[in-house]
Structures are given as structure tokens and as C-alpha cells.
């Protein structure tokens, strides 16, 4: 089976449209980031999360009022699981007290529907600050590491464009999280440790697709005149289009399966991965290679090749 027969898109000619689309995506995301901000999970904000499961289905509003009257300040939402609600409240040093308070209040006020606290997560503010800091360090280290590796394997123009594409991908997904954060009950899209895991995986993967295109350009450009570059770039991108999309496709299958089956704890991660792979595939064709091409046109020097 083949999804793509011989294609002949003129990617380079229409690259400015792609630049505008990318800029729009990024700017919208950034505006949302600066005005609305991110919906941080307790990993980075500190606080307590309690998942309460009931025996029978329960009205979230009534649970909310019971918990409110018990004197626990916080938010109660539907959890992405049957008959379960999620209580989010400030950090309590003693989650045992919190647990007792909730259990007693629910048993007294919602009789005949046994409530069980199935999980408690409590993160103190000092640890949350530490985790945030180490997440930033890890992301920074990943970008520097990838820049170094790609600049060893390719020349600096390719490497820089590749890293720009990674920034593009991660920032777009971050913007998406800011825009969509808190809109859906079944996936709150909070930025927590698992989302950082997704970002790092996206950063690692974004370059994969880009490298496939780069490899082909490098293979074909050897000994060619600069006037031929536009044709070679276009042909290379068309020739690799099928594999770029199929490789993303297989991962997309995995990510979709995770989104559907792996439960609420993984859903945010799966969504971030999904968005990251879509944007990553787009950026390797429409951002990374065109930037190399534009840069090349401006510098006028022939491409110096490195590596195999």
C-alpha cells in the first residue's frame, strides 16, 4: 500500500505562507501565555489533589457543597474516570487530617453512597519550586545538547534551523496548553511533570523528522550549483514526504491509544505528544528546511558538507 504516489509540491515557493502561519500560531500562543498564563499542576504550583471515588454515580455539585461546608477551601471537579471526583486544595502538611475531614463529611452528608479516597497527592511549595527549576534546566540542557549533536552531524545552518524548529514546536504546544487549559473536564491540560516529559520527547522527536529531510538534501546537494538548490530542496522534501508522514503516523497511533485507554493520569501527556508530533511533522517540512534555504540564499556561499 502507498499513501503517497510521486508528489510534486513546490514547498519552497510557498514557504512564506508557512512562515506567516507559524508566526500566527506562535504569536497567538505567546499572547495567551502572557495574558492567561499556564494552568500549572500541583507538581509546579504546590498543593494537594485528592481523588474520591463513589460507589454510585454522584452529582459533583453536591460533593462540592459538602466539602465546602466541611471547611476545605478548594475546587471540586469531575475526574476523568467513572464515579470519581477530584478535589484540589492548598497544601496541607498533614494530609491525614484532610483525609479524615473529607471522609467524615462525605459519610455524614451523602449517606448510602460510600466514598473512598483512592489517591492523595500533596506537594509542598519548596519542592514545587525545585521541580519547576529542574524542569527548566532539563529543557535547556536538551536544547543545547541537540544543538551540539546536530551541529556535529550537520553544518551550523542546518543545526540552527533544526533547533529553531524545536523551539517552534515546543512553544506552539505550550501556547496550545495555555489557550485550551482548563476548558475540558476530561483533560484539564495542566502543565506538570508529565507535560515536561512530553516536551522533552517532542524535542527529541522533532529533530527526527527534520533529520530525515536534511539527510536527503545533503545526499543530493553534493557538487551542485547554488542555482539548483531550490529544485533540490523541493525534490528532496517531496521524496521524503512519505516517510516523514508515515513515521509520524506510527507514533500517532501509539499516542492515540494512550489517549483513549491509559486513563486520566496519562491523558494530558498524550494530548501534548499528539499536538507535538503534528506540529513537529509540519515544522520539519515547512520551517526547518525553508529556513536553511533562505539562509543559504542570503549567505551566497556554497553549502559546506560534513558527515556522511
Amino acid at each position, binding site marked *: *500500500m502507498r*499513501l503517497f504516489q510521486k508528489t510534486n509540491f513546490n514547498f519552497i515557493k510557498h514557504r512564506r505562507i508557512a512562515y506567516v502561519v507559524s508566526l500566527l500560531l506562535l504569536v497567538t500562543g505567546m499572547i495567551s501565555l502572557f495574558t492567561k498564563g499556564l494552568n500549572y499542576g500541583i507538581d509546579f504550583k504546590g498543593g494537594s489533589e485528592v481523588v474520591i*471515588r463513589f460507589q454510585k454515580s454522584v452529582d459533583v455539585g453536591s460533593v462540592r457543597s459538602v466539602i465546602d461546608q466541611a471547611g476545605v477551601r478548594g475546587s471540586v471537579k469531575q475526574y476523568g474516570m467513572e464515579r470519581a471526583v477530584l478535589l484540589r486544595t492548598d497544601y496541607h502538611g498533614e*494530609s*491525614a487530617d484532610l*483525609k479524615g475531614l473529607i471522609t467524615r463529611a462525605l459519610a455524614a452528608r451523602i449517606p448510602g453512597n460510600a466514598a*473512598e479516597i*483512592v*489517591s492523595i*497527592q*500533596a*506537594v*509542598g*511549595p*519548596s*519542592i514545587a*519550586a*525545585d521541580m519547576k527549576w*529542574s*524542569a527548566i*534546566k*532539563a529543557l535547556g540542557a*536538551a536544547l543545547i*545538547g*541537540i544543538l551540539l*549533536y*546536530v551541529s556535529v*552531524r550537520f553544518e551550523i545552518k542546518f543545526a540552527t534551523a533544526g533547533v529553531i524548529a524545536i523551539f517552534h514546536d515546543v512553544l506552539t504546544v505550550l501556547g496550545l496548553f495555555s489557550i485550551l487549559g482548563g476548558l475540558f473536564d476530561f483533560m484539564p491540560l495542566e502543565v506538570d*511533570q508529565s507535560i*515536561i*516529559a512530553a516536551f*522533552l520527547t517532542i524535542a*527529541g*522527536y522533532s*529533530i*527526527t523528522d527534520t*533529520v*530525515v529531510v536534511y*539527510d536527503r538534501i545533503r*545526499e543530493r546537494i553534493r557538487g551542485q550549483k547554488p542555482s539548483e538548490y531550490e529544485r533540490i530542496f523541493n525534490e528532496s522534501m517531496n*521524496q521524503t514526504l*512519505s*516517510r516523514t508522514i*508515515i*513515521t509520524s*503516523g*506510527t*507514533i500517532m*497511533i*501509539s499516542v492515540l*491509544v*494512550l489517549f*483513549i*485507554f*491509559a*486513563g486520566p*493520569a*496519562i491523558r494530558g*501527556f498524550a494530548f501534548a*505528544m499528539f499536538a507535538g508530533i503534528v506540529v513537529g511533522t509540519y515544522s520539519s517540512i515547512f520551517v526547518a528546511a525553508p529556513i536553511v534555504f533562505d539562509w543559504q540564499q542570503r549567505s551566497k556561499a556554497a553549502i559546506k558538507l560534513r558527515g556522511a
Partner: protein
Amino acid sequence: MKNNQFKLILIVVVALVSVWSIWPTYRDHELSTRLSSFRSSEDSLKFAIDHRTEIEQARDKSLKLGLDLRGGMHLVMEVDLFDLIEQKAWNKDARFQQIMASVRSSATNSGANPVELLATEFKKQNIPLSRYFYDIRNSDQEIIDKLNKEAQDSLVRAKEIIRNRIDQYGVAEPLIQTQGARRIIIELSGVTDETRVRKLLKGTAKLEFKLVREPEALLRAIESVNSMQAQAPSAPADSAKAPVTASRPSGRKLSEVIGVMKNGLVFTPEYARDYVASVLNREDVRARLPQDTELLLAAKPELTEKGEKYYPIYLVKKTPELTGGVITEAKATFGSQNVQPEVSMSMNDEGTSKWARITGANIGKQIAIVLDGAVYSAPVVQSRIPNGNSVINGISGLDEAKDLEIILKAGALPAPVRILEERTVGPSLGSDYIRAGLLSMIWGFAAVAIFMIIYYNKAGLVADSALVLNILVVISVLAGFKASLSLPGIAGIVLTMGMAVDANVLIYERIREELAEGKSLKSAVEAGYNRAFSSILDSHVTTLAAAFLLSQFGVGPIQGFAVTLMIGTGASLFTAIVVTRVIFDLLIGSGFMNEKSFG
């Protein structure tokens, strides 16, 4: 072909080792299914005894599930190094307290080293550290080094003591490790009574024997504190009219919540205990008391005839006569009337002789047994105790007595600890997660495998067999290195399935191109593998790098994801490139494959 023979042997070895490593996991599962299938408990017990070694071996070598899957507690605790520093300081004056308070508050939101923070603050105020610490002749740097050493030691000691306590409480395979300069990570699986465990871990267990001052001194001290309260402007004028409620005693004067009985006993009702405790802890209140004394509350309330609960208050000498360090043995028992649980303790030689001297010199007086700042009991000394025995009573239940026994035996923590992070997953949610994880693995594999067959035909089948081997390798490495599988770890495996076939996609697309150019099957395969290699290597290295960084920064659950992703990506370099290549060589040689086999 000789080369291929070597590769073939390698593949068979890898596959066998993987199966061998996963085998105990399978046996463990099978045996526990058998165990739970018996009708009567006698039958299952008999089976368990008959197959004991086999069951134990299988369990020991099987793949461990993470805390989120089997239920358990993950705790991050912090040793309060400020408390330790305060313990080490002498000659503490108001200036010192003020500096400590400011450093303490600035440190709440950072992981910075308290010793360094304190040193900077002292330097800023131009006070030499030697004014409060160690010897006056020590330089600042010497004192910083000493304090840092103390801090380091106390962390290790705290870890050992916590390990002792957990071991004696009895939790299977606890994981206890230090992180950074002041944190301890504890992972306990299958804990049913979290509240009890939490208390067990947090109790400092600072045991002290303190002389109780005479009742007249106590009354004078209470009066003195009350009179100071009367002058205090902080008490609102209308507070006296407010109804007595449990939740708001804080606006009241101390004299309203402290009563004196005819026999000289001073007490406070249950609802006011926290408030009274906080007032008694205040620095200005402490300063009003006679030299070297302090007011302490009882740990347990006493009941009046009407059933009201009240807590006695004691005035004791601040300097303890003896501390818990001399305790060698502790045992939870029932007391003389066989109803009240108590803990009896024995002391080492030094403690025994001291205890004999102290009890001998104070016959007829009360000695308070103080644990973590609360008076458990204050018996009147009847006679000299020569054998180093003592008893803690005033304990409400046998569980508490047993926990006290554990804590006393394991020793006191060098400084108080706080829980910074807690993640608890109940077993019912854990089994839901297991189901979700299994479903994702099955569907993930099925979807990717079927896609590859539809898209690449027979070649897809070859990629799928490499994928099976890849998953086997990941699970066997986890089992072999005794790493545990968590839900994020499963997510990593599912993601790896999608990524592992990528290498094959790159190779197959290249082969298709080479075939389209009219090359023979054999040389197309050859060219496909050679030319796709550089892209495959690049993509694997970048993914590995990202996963490695993630495993370095991540805690707990995220590390599980990073580790499986790393193993999976590494393994796919072998399975997708070497394994499929050998299979192709064999299949093409046998005529099973032709130009159409790549779809």
C-alpha cells in the same frame, strides 16, 4: 554469510536471555493465580507450603510493579536543619533568634543550604559565627565546615533511623534514600494504615526525664503569665463576651482557659489545648518563667467525673536529668491492672547509674517523662531505682504503645522532619491503572502491528517480529535490573512501539525507492539499510539524549517513563536494524520474498 551466522546466534541469545529473564514474572503470575483459585484456605495454605521456595524465587525475580500500580506511598521528607543549628548554638540571645527567624522564612521557598544562608546573614550583620557556635577561637569557615558536617551526618542518621523504624513496623521492600543536602525519599508499597505510618516516620522521639517543680512555683508561673496576658493589647475587648467555641479560643485571655484545682493541679480544657500550647511556646511568655524552667502540657487528657477532657500543665526544669540516648530496650506491655498499655524501658550502664542517683536524690518528688515536648506521665519517685528500669504510661492504645516501642528502640531523630511531598495511591485505583496499562499495551501493539502489515505487506510482518523482540527486551531489562514498571513506564513502552518501527519505515521507504529505480531485490535491500542508517542513528541519538535528561531530572513516576523510553529506543537500534536485516537475508535466500513483498 559467516557474518550472518554470528548475528543469528546473537539474536537467538538475546531472545533466550529475554525469555529467561521474564520467565519468573510469568511463573509468579501463574502461581498466584493458582493460589487464589483454591476453594478453601487450607488448600491454598498447603499449596503455598509445598511450593514455598518456588513461589519465593519467582516473586524475587519477577518484574516489580510501581507504587502507582500496586498501591502505596511515596514520601519526600525534609530534615529541619535549622532546628539542628539551633541545637548546636549556645548563648542564644534575642539577636540570634531574630536572625534565625529571618533566615528560616527566607529559606521556605528554596532548596538552599541553611548553613550557607545563616553564614551569609551573619556576615551581613557583621557578627562572627563563633559568638554562638563551638569555640570562640574558631574562624567562620571552620564553623561553617563543622555545621555542614553535622548537617550531613544528621541526614544519614535520620535515614538510618527511619529505615529502622520501617523495618520494625514491617513493610515489604521499602525504598529509602537521601536526595540532596536535606531530603529523604521513602517509598512504601501496600501500606494500609497511612496515618499510623506517617506518625511513625515523623515522630522525633526525643525522650527526656525532667524534674517537676513544686506546685507553688507552678502557680506563681501561671500567675505571672496571666498578668502579662492582661497587659497585652492584642486581646480584643469584646472577647470575653464571645461564646466559648472550640474553633475560636485564640481571642481569649489565657486566664479564662486555664483552671487551678484545689490540689494544686493546673489544667486546660481540651478545646483550648492548641491555643494554650501556642501561647506557652511564645518567646516572651517563656522569658517570664523562672530560670531554667518551662511549662509543658500533658500528651493525653484526663477525664473528669462528668466526662469532660482536660490536659494538665506542668512546670518542669528545662535541663533534663536524663535523655532517651541511654535507652537500650523498649517493650510495649500492659500495666499492672492489665488494661492500660505501657512501654517499659531499660537503660545502659551509664544511664542505670545516673537513673539510680537521680531517683535516689528525689524521693517524694515528681519526675516527668517527656516525649517530643509533651508530658506522658509524671510519677512520684517512691524509692531509688537501681536497675535502670522505667515505664511510660498514659498511652491510649496498644497500637500506639507498639509504635512507641519501635520509635524508642530505633532511637531519636537528630532533628524534626517534615513531609514535603506525598503521593498515595490506593490498591483499587492501582488495579484500575493496571487494567488501563494492559489495554494500552495490547491495543498499541495491535494497531501498530496491523498498520505495518497493511502498509508494508510481508516486510511489515518482519518489522512486527522485531517489535515483539523489542518489547521482550524492554520488559526483561526492567525485570533483570529490578526496576519497577509504573503507569508512565507503560506509556513509555507504548510510545516505544510507535518509535521502534520508525527505523523500519525509513529503511522500507528507501528500499521501495531503490526498487523503483530498477535495482534487484538484494541490492535494493542492501542500499536501503546502508543509506537509511545515518537518519536512524541521528533520530535515535536525539531521542536517547532527551530520555536521558528526563531520567536525570525527573522524580519517581517520570523517571519510569524515561527509563523505558531509553531501553526501548536503544533496543530498537538492534531489533530494527540488525534483526530485520538477518531475517531479510534468510527470507530472500529462501525465495520467500520478492519485489512485491515491500508493499
